């Protein structure tokens, strides 16, 4: 909806949309900082959950409803709950923060990488993949069905391999949990 103020004209929807996206993005970044900088693991986990919710919202803004739902259910729901369980099990003590050489080096390298990545935004347009799925078409079919169509036709093999991967992970977990109780045999001398 176009609003014309004479010297300045803007599209209200677009501006609102962009502002919301910007806000949620900023929140996500701040939550990420919170994850890294907190001294207690519980707080870091909570910040991470917040960050994931923000990302899910961003996914929604970008028209990937199915993925947003999967993010919330799988990531924020299952994975983070697992994290919280482990934190409860192992205990999260607050660790002392000291600024040492290592931290300084980390700062500098990360700063360099960020600068480079930022510069890379000025590189130029990427090679577009010709795609047929714009918003209207997705809205017609429904996001889940659209993804389902892609997943089970073009990307069938990765799908199957991912399921094998999950199976392997499950078997590995059971093995680890089972044998973790067996005492380690010591060598005779």
């Amino acid at each position, binding site marked *: 909806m176009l609003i014309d103020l004479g010297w300045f004209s803007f599209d209200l929807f677009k501006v609102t949309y962009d502002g919301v996206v910007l806000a949620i993005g900023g929140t996500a970044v701040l939550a990420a900082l919170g994850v890294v900088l907190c001294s207690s693991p519980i707080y870091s986990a909570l910040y991470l959950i917040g960050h994931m919710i923000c990302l899910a919202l961003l996914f929604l803004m970008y028209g990937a409803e199915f993925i947003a739902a999967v993010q919330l259910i799988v990531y924020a729901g299952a994975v983070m709950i697992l994290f919280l369980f482990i934190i409860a099990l192992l205990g999260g003590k607050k660790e002392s923060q000291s600024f040492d050489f290592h931290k300084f080096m980390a700062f500098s390298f990360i700063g360099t*990488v960020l600068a*480079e990545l930022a510069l890379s935004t000025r590189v130029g347009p990427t090679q577009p993949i010709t795609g047929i799925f714009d918003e209207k078409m997705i809205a017609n079919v429904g996001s889940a069905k659209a993804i389902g169509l892609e997943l089970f036709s073009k990307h069938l093999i990765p799908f199957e391999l991912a399921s094998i991967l999950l199976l392997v992970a499950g078997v590995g977990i059971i093995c680890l949990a089972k044998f973790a109780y067996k005492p380690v045999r010591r060598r005779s001398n």
Partner: protein
Amino acid sequence: MFGYGWLVLISPLLGFLSLSCFGKRIPRSIAGYVACATVGLSFFISLILLVHLSVLEPENRVGGVQAMYTWIDSGQFQLDFAILIDPLSVFMFLIVTGVGFFIHVYSLGYMEHDPEFKRFFAYLNLFIFSMCVLVSAADFFFLIVGWALVGLASYLLIGFWRDKPSAVLAARKAFVMNVIGDVGMLIAAFMILETFGSLSYQKVFESAPGMFLANDINVILITLFLLVGAFAKSAQLPLHTWLPDAMEGPTPVSALIHAATMVTAGVYLVARCHTLFELAPFTMYVIATVGIITATFAGTIAMVQTDIKRVIAYSTMSQLGYMFLAVGLGMFSFGMFHLMTHAFFKALLFLGAGSVIHSMNDEQDIRKMGGLAKAMPITYITFLIGSLALAGFPLTSGFFSKEAIIMASYHSAMGNIAFWALAIFTAGMTAFYSFRLFFTVFQGDSRTPDAHPHESPITMTGPLMILAFFALTAGVLGHWVDGFLSPVFGGHAEHYEDGFLETIAVLVGFGGILTAGLLYMVPSDRVAQLREVLAPIHDILFHKYYVDEIYDFLIVKPVKAISVFLEDMGEKKGVDFAVDQVGVQVREVSKYVSIWQSGRIRDYALNMVAGMALVLIFVAFL
């Protein structure tokens, strides 16, 4: 056409190889017979070659190069495995294999009680092979190969009795001096290759007269370097000190190598390269001068020596000087003729000395010998014949060859009165010392009553008799030798007839014999009185003019000091240190680098990110 000439070389080589590989398993006598047979076969083939060449007309008697295999053929340089069969090489073949054969037979008897019998014959065969390579090489390359091989054989044979320290030292000394000669020869070969572009005799000798005027500096340098090799091999001044010490080897070795064949290699070299030497009259003059001076020098020393083999060794040096005088004056065929007669009577003298030593239980000091005439009649007579030939008694072979040289020393183009005077003086000394030796050893009464000398077995006396026959009769071959070798030297040598000088020479010879007889035939005090009067001179002569001591002071000690210094500074502190430090420093550096590997995940993550940053820089900006 002369392809079978290769057999002369291959036969002793096979003998050497088979004796050294299978020697342990075959019985002694077989080893001895095999060795003699190989050399005998070589001699037989040489005789066939001689006949083959003799029936040709002098113009055609050029022989030929027999190539077996082309070894190097690159661009303009070609080198074949080839031997040259021409009158000169066949002449040398005959001497080497003939005298060699007789000495092999002699050694069957002489070395009978030696535990290392088979090794000796293997080395002797090796020597015959090497000498044949030397004299039949068709280019300078194989000449030097033969030169070095002969030096090797000489080293092995001088040091044959490995447990005798003096023998080992003498072998080393001989080898080192030989190598000095080898270096000279190599430099000469390089210069020849650079100047002529080829090492083959044919090419060099054909193109030499066209390329150089007489006394060109290049030719003079080439010939002087060749002379270094010749003088080292033939024990002329100043590279002569190895020859007396080489008498530490067994007597057959001294006879074969250091009398008849190896030491004549120098004379052969000058004769073979006569084209080059004729282009450098300066060098010829040097040859003649050094030759006659060595002859005189050696003669003076021989007069006072007390070891039977050393006297004969110095006489060899002296007679080689005569040969060099001859070739230095341009009388190449006379030099070769004297080489032939010298081979006969010198080998005879050495073998006779060996017979004496053998029967006196390895005693070599003549002051302990005496009165052997009755005990060893054959040795006595043959030794007498040899001494007469050496002294140049009329009608012996030595007389004819020496006369020719003495005539030429006065009458030939470069001859002068000084050469003649020294030649005559040396002839007198030769007569004196050879009969001094003869009378001391064989006449009178024995000075050691305990010894029981006996005549030697037939294997030893047989060669003595045959050689004595040749020493007596070879004199008539003078003209034939000249004619046979004329195609090689491009013409006949001038034979000067001068009755006056001949008479003087004969009289001087007689005078020498008489003096020796007066002093030594009957034991008396005259010798002792003479020695007291001339004590200082006697001292210098007995110590060989102190040349060995001078060399030791000037050369040996500084070289040893330098090598000790280099071993300490160069090896231990230099090279060893550097190599060790490479390893040590790597270890030190790795001590510091290994701190980086802390085992902590976070540090590894840091490294990963650092790497990523670096890669991104490259990707983004470069």
